[in-house]
C-alpha cells in the first residue's frame, strides 16, 4: 500500500517536473528578447564611446581606445563646462519647483479647496498639450525681456515644466499621509507649522524626494526648451550631444550620452524606494 502510493508520488513528481523544465524555454526566449531589445542599443552606445575606427560592414569596431575621452575631458574640452551648466540648472530647477509644489501639493492633497478639480486641471494642462509651441513663443517673449540665452531663462522653463510632476506627486504624497496624525499632533498642542514640519512633511518626504528626482532628471535631460531658449549661449549636455551627433561625431555624442545615462540609471534603480505603490496609485486622482 505504501509502496504503491510512493510509486504514485514519484510518477506525479515526474509528470510535474518535465513540463516545469520545458516551461523555462518560452520564458527564456521572451526574457532573452526583452534583454536584447533593452541592452542591444545600450551596448551599441558603449562600443561607440571606445571605438577609434568603425565603419560598414564591420560588425565590431576595428580599433579601440580612449582618445575621444581624452579629447572630451581635456581642460579645453566642452564637456566639463556643459556638465557644470547642466547640473547647476537642474539644482536650481529642483529648488524652484519644490518651493512652489510643496505648499500647492499640501493644499491640494489635504485642504478643502474651492474648485480643487479645476486647479488640478491647471497643472494637467502643461502635460495635456505639446510643449513645443510654448517653447517657441516663450523664447520670443524671453528675447524681448533679455532672458533669452541666459541660465535664468532656462531655469524658469525647467521649473515650469517640472512643476507638473512636482505638484502631482506632492499632492499624491500628502494625500497618502494619514490626516489624523496631524490632527493628533494639533490636539496635543502643536502649532500648525510644527505639526506640518514634524509630522506631515517627514511622512510625505519619500514622495517629495521622488518628485525632486523627477524634476532634476527632467531638467538635466531637457532638450527642446534649452534648444530654443538657451542655445547657443547656454550649452547644456543635451545640446552638446545634439551638436556633436549632428556633426557626425558619434564618439563624442556617445560619450556625452553616457554621461547623461549615469544619473538616469542610478535613479532608475532607486526610484521604487521613494515612490511607493500607495502614492503611485493616487497620481492623477
Amino acid at each position, binding site marked *: 500500500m505504501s509502496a504503491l502510493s510512493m510509486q504514485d508520488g514519484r510518477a506525479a513528481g515526474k509528470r510535474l517536473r518535465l513540463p516545469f523544465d520545458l516551461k523555462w524555454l518560452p520564458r527564456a526566449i521572451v526574457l532573452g528578447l526583452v534583454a536584447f531589445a533593452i541592452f542591444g542599443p545600450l551596448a551599441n552606445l558603449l562600443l561607440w564611446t571606445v571605438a577609434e575606427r568603425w565603419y560598414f560592414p564591420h560588425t565590431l569596431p576595428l580599433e579601440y581606445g580612449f582618445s575621444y575621452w581624452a579629447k572630451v575631458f581635456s581642460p579645453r574640452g566642452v564637456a566639463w563646462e556643459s556638465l557644470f551648466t547642466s547640473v547647476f540648472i537642474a539644482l536650481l530647477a529642483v529648488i524652484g519647483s519644490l518651493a512652489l509644489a510643496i505648499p500647492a501639493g499640501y493644499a491640494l492633497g489635504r485642504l478643502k479647496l474651492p474648485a480643487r478639480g479645476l486647479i488640478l486641471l491647471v497643472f494637467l494642462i502643461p502635460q495635456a498639450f505639446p510643449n513645443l*509651441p510654448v*517653447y517657441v513663443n516663450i523664447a520670443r517673449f524671453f528675447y524681448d525681456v533679455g532672458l533669452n540665452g541666459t541660465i535664468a531663462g532656462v531655469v524658469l522653463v525647467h521649473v515650469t515644466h517640472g512643476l507638473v510632476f512636482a505638484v502631482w506627486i506632492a499632492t499624491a504624497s500628502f494625500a497618502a499621509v494619514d490626516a489624523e496624525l496631524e490632527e493628533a499632533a494639533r490636539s496635543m498642542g502643536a502649532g500648525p507649522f510644527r505639526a506640518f514640519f514634524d509630522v506631515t512633511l517627514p511622512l510625505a518626504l519619500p514622495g517629495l524626494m521622488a518628485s525632486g528626482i523627477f524634476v532634476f532628471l527632467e531638467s538635466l535631460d531637457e532638450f527642446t526648451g534649452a534648444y530654443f531658449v538657451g542655445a547657443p549661449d547656454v550649452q547644456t549636455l543635451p545640446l552638446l550631444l545634439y551638436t556633436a551627433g549632428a556633426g557626425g561625431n558619434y564618439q563624442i555624442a556617445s560619450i556625452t550620452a553616457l554621461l547623461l545615462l549615469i544619473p538616469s540609471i542610478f535613479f532608475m534603480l532607486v526610484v521604487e524606494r521613494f515612490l511607493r505603490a500607495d502614492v503611485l496609485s493616487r*497620481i*492623477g486622482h
Partner: protein
Amino acid sequence: MRERTIGLLLAVPAIATIALLYMMPLLASVTGAFETEAGFGLDNFIKARDLYTTDILYTLLIVSASTLIIAAFSVAIAGYLTLGENPKAVAILRWLYRWPLFIPFIVVGQVLRTFLAKNGLMNNLLVAGGILTPMQTMSFLDWRGIVIAFVWKQTPFVTLLLAGAMASIDRATIEAARNLGASRLRILFEIVVPQVRTTLFVGMVLSFVTMMSVLSVPLMISAQSPTMITADIAFRINAYGDYGVANALGMISLIMTMAVAIFYLSHNLKEKAR
C-alpha cells in the same frame, strides 16, 4: 472658510507660474497662428496644409501606433509582474524592464540612431548570425525608427505606473478567480485591467502628449520628410524665422492632443460620477 483661503494662498504661486510661463506663451502660439502680414487670417494654415499634410498624417500615425504598442507591452509586462507564478522570472523581468525609464529622449535618439542604422549593431549581428546578407540589411531610420524609439522609452514609464496600481488592488478577487479555475490571461483582462483602467489611461495620455512634444527623437532619427510636425516647427523657425507657419503647425498638434485630453477628461468625469 479660513482653510479654503489658506489653501488658495498656498496654491497661488504655483498657479501663477503656470499662468505666466505656460498659459501666456500658449495663448501667444494660438494668436500667432492667425497672424499674417495682412492682419489676421488663415494664410498660415493654408501654407501649413500645402507643405506639411504628409507630415501631419505621419505624426498622427507614429504617435497613435506608438501609444497602442506601449499600452499592449505595458499591460503584458505589468500583468506578468502581478500574476506571474515563477518568482525568478518575475524578478528578472522586474529588473529588466525599467532600464530605459529615465534615459532621456535625446540619448534614446542617439542610441537608437546607431543601433538601427544600416551599419548598426542590430544589422551587424543579424549578418554575423547568418540571418541576413549585408545586401539585405536595411535602415530603420525612418518613421518606424521613431516608433521604435518612442516605444523603447515610454513602455517602462507606463509599466511602472500600471505595476504600481496593480500591486495595490485587492488580491482576494484574483485568488478567488484562480481557485475557480480562471486562466491567468482571463484574470488579467477581466479582473486586473478593469481595476487599473484609470491609471492605464493616464499613462497613455501622458505618453501621447509627451511624444507629440519630443523634438530630439525625430530630429536625430529621421529629420527628412516624412517626419513629425515637431521637426517641421523647428525647421520653420531656424531656417526662415517663420513664426506664423510654425505656430499654425503648433495649433494642429494642439488640436490633436486636445482631442485626446477631452477623451480622457470625459472618461474621468464619468468615472467620478459613478
